[in-house]
């Protein structure tokens, strides 16, 4: 279908993707729902007289001529763009399809979920578990002759414990996301990760106040990483709103901070051999030992920035390609990325010398402030107080605030608890001097 479409469109590229998803959901420990989703669609981009237009369809037997006409109409309004589609090239090899995941039966998925529910069951706790398995196929091509495609599997296991004791609501969440089914070790890590956070949360203590050391767990780190993800995107660079755009080659952060995007990470949840614009996958160093090295680009932003695409074009059925990170590795450059520690220590081994501070595992409202400026201010969703090197209990009604560009100039350390969380790999991060307010 891609070949036919490209022939009709002259100067163009296209993506076809088909996905079949099987999902099961346990509510309060009981299996309640089983479902499937089947979806297929085509996204077409044309260049007509130097202008770009896009169109997409989910129709089962699409009218290809109409699709091309729709893309051309979209191009008529478009801006001039010097976009060259990449020629054919050899692709790196990275596993994206796992037979075990593809062939798992509904009963196997149910058994997996049931096992997890049983291990997480606690008196007075509601356990919700969901499993989603996706089998998909992607094909991309362009009129410069490039073709690519790959089958892929993906599995997401999410588990949540809700404990309500009179008026106290405690929610602890964890997930496994990967190309293959979780191993016994992955499930053990998931259970232990929830248990490790549940037990100290049963005691509620009053929050501290002031500029304090705060350990952000891999989950709690989202508020710190989000501004960097925006600033390291070629999109904000060409818009003039990236605080890092003019700082390539500069020491903007502590030497312990490195950030790499790696679509070829073995077993990485977002690994793939090429992006959705036929650009072969390669590692991109964004920050190396605190020095800003580069940005991620798709074809369009690269053309406008007079840079090269780093292979970060991602497209859905509708709309034009957008920049999307793949596997984002955040931490010390020397640390290995690999399997999750089976029994991670809450705090990542970073709390021994903290006299008074916090471990932050979840913040509420991440992404809703002035993210691009680097400022954050959030009530804690799940956080623990650390006193004299020990976790003394969970704190409520506290809020943390700071600016990541100030705080990351000096890092107190990364922990020993590196793990995947979605498609981000990181360990706990300790920052000193984070503002903690309380009521």
């Amino acid at each position, binding site marked *: 279908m891609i070949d036919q479409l490209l022939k009709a469109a002259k100067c163009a590229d296209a993506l076809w993707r088909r996905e079949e998803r099987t999902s099961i959901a346990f509510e309060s420990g009981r299996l309640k729902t089983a479902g499937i989703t*089947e979806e297929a669609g085509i996204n077409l981009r044309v260049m007509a007289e130097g202008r770009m237009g896009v169109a997409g369809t989910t129709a*089962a037997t699409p009218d290809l001529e109409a699709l091309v006409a729709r893309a051309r109409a979209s191009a008529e309004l478009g801006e001039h763009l010097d976009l060259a589609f990449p020629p054919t090239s050899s692709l790196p090899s990275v596993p994206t399809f796992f037979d075990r995941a593809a062939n798992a039966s509904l009963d196997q998925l149910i058994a997996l979920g049931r096992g997890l529910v049983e291990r997480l069951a606690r008196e007075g706790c509601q356990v919700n578990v969901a499993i989603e398995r996706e089998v998909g196929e992607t094909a991309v091509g362009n009129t410069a002759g490039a073709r690519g495609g790959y089958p892929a599997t993906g599995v997401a296991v999410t588990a949540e414990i809700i404990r309500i004791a009179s008026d106290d609501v405690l929610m602890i969440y964890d997930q496994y996301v990967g190309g293959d089914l979780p191993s016994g070790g992955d499930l053990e890590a998931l259970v232990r990760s929830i248990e490790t956070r549940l037990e100290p949360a049963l005691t509620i203590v009053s929050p501290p106040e002031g500029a304090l050391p705060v350990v952000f767990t891999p989950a709690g780190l989202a508020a710190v990483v989000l501004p960097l993800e925006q600033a390291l995107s070629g999109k904000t660079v060409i818009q003039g709103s990236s605080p890092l755009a003019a700082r390539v080659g500069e020491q903007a952060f502590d030497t312990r901070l490195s950030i790499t995007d790696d679509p070829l990470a073995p077993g990485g949840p977002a690994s793939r051999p090429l992006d959705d614009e036929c650009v072969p996958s390669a590692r991109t160093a964004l920050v190396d030992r605190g020095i800003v090295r580069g940005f991620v680009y798709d074809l369009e932003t690269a053309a406008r920035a007079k840079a090269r695409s780093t292979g970060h074009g991602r497209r859905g059925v509708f709309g034009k390609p957008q920049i999307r990170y793949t596997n984002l590795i955040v931490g010390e450059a020397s640390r290995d990325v690999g399997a999750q520690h089976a029994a991670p220590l809450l705090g990542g081994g970073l709390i021994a010398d903290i006299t008074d501070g916090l471990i932050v595992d979840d913040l509420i409202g991440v992404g809703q402030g002035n993210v691009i400026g680097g400022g954050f*201010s959030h009530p804690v969703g799940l956080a623990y107080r650390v006193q004299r090197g020990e976790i003394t209990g969970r704190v409520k009604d506290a809020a*943390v*605030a700071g600016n990541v560009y100030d705080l990351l100039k000096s890092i107190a350390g990364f922990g020993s608890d590196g793990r995947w969380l979605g498609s981000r790999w990181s360990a706990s991060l300790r920052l000193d001097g984070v503002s903690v307010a309380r*009521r």
Partner: protein
Amino acid sequence: MKDRLAAALKTSRADYTEIRVERTWSSAVTFRGRRLETATVSEDQGGFVRALNRGCGWGIASFTSLDALPAMVGRANQLSRAVRLDKPISLAETVPQVADAALDLDGDVRGISLAEKKKLIEAYNGAMLAVSDAVVDTSAIYRDEVSEVWYVNSEGTALAQLRPEVSISGTAIARRDGTIEKGLESIGLRKGWRSVHGLEERFRIVAQRAVDLLDAPRVQGGAYPVILDNELAGVFVHEAFGHLSEADFVYENPQAREMMTLGRRFGKPVLNVGDNGAASGLRGTLPYDDEGTPTQDTPLIKEGMLVGRLHSRETAAALGERPTGNARAISFRHAPIVRMTNTYIAPGRAGATREDLIKDVKLGVYACGAFGGQTMLENFSFTAAWGHMIRDGHVAEMVKDVVLAGNLFQTLDRIDHIAGDFTWNQMGGGCGKGGQFPLPVTEGAPHVRIEEILVGGDV
């Protein structure tokens, strides 16, 4: 189409079956800075089947190929039978509905050219860019859609609905040296082309605000009396209480049921809260929800007491209450779950103004506009777009990064004054829950005073 669905329904061997098919026509024009990003027209369609059998769970199938409909009816039944349940799922009784419900298209967006839509959003984008050289980046998005939704179930409900939607949003980024601030305008309406003109001034204002925020200090963290403007008070009620009133949170959890017992006091007698999916012309408005239940005005808090909650047919049956028409899905890709529609804090004493709420506050914060909100049920955050300090009963200097940290059991009860100046916020964006985002909802409120609430920031 209804006949096609009725025929497919007849082939089902499940005890209960429902089919929803949607066809959505949409267009979008996006500017980023001075550059047009995209101008596209899209058509999306697909179907959803849900089956239920006695002693079994839900079987669900969603698909983009309508040719697969008969096969999917069979798959949903098989999936339901694969889920064995000791405690059966029952659905609260509803009267089967047969209707064609077409909402007013208010200027059918399908008849307007992309070039005209581009011209409109370009003018709003230009209004932001013209404010100051300090406005370094903007994003301006025009989006519209008309969806046709067909719904049938095996109890005799057969509905055809036509739902229009149009939204316009603008973000202005202002920058001076290392300081970057933003202003946000967002308008979302369940209406059409006629309703989105003459809005330049609103976009100019938000861009000017982004520039003004460059000079504003960050708010100092701590507990303050806070007055919320209408927009933020709307987001507040959505996050603070709306999500807790969704019965899928309580129906399977005995402790949660106890915590949310009807009759429990959550606020002072000034506080009245409800959710009204039948309100006229709002973004969360629908004649029927995605289980075919008519929508209604549901009181949730009356004079400070919990009096109701939002239901699907399943949660209503489990709690022995009545369905409220709040089972909603963002598209055929998803099952309906319990969601809000148009959630509101009812106005206080007629004639009570913002000034009445501020005049006896010695030191406080006037929190305005909304960048967003999120809840973890007991605790929640809501982020103001900007704020002012209140000093000795007067609105004083502008402050930024005003993020409020709420607690369900404390914050609601500390609402001590509610003005009479109620408005609905016709905002774009939407609500996210269970992987379903963005769901069109509206919030409405007057100015509201909270005696004391935690504001995050430097201490």
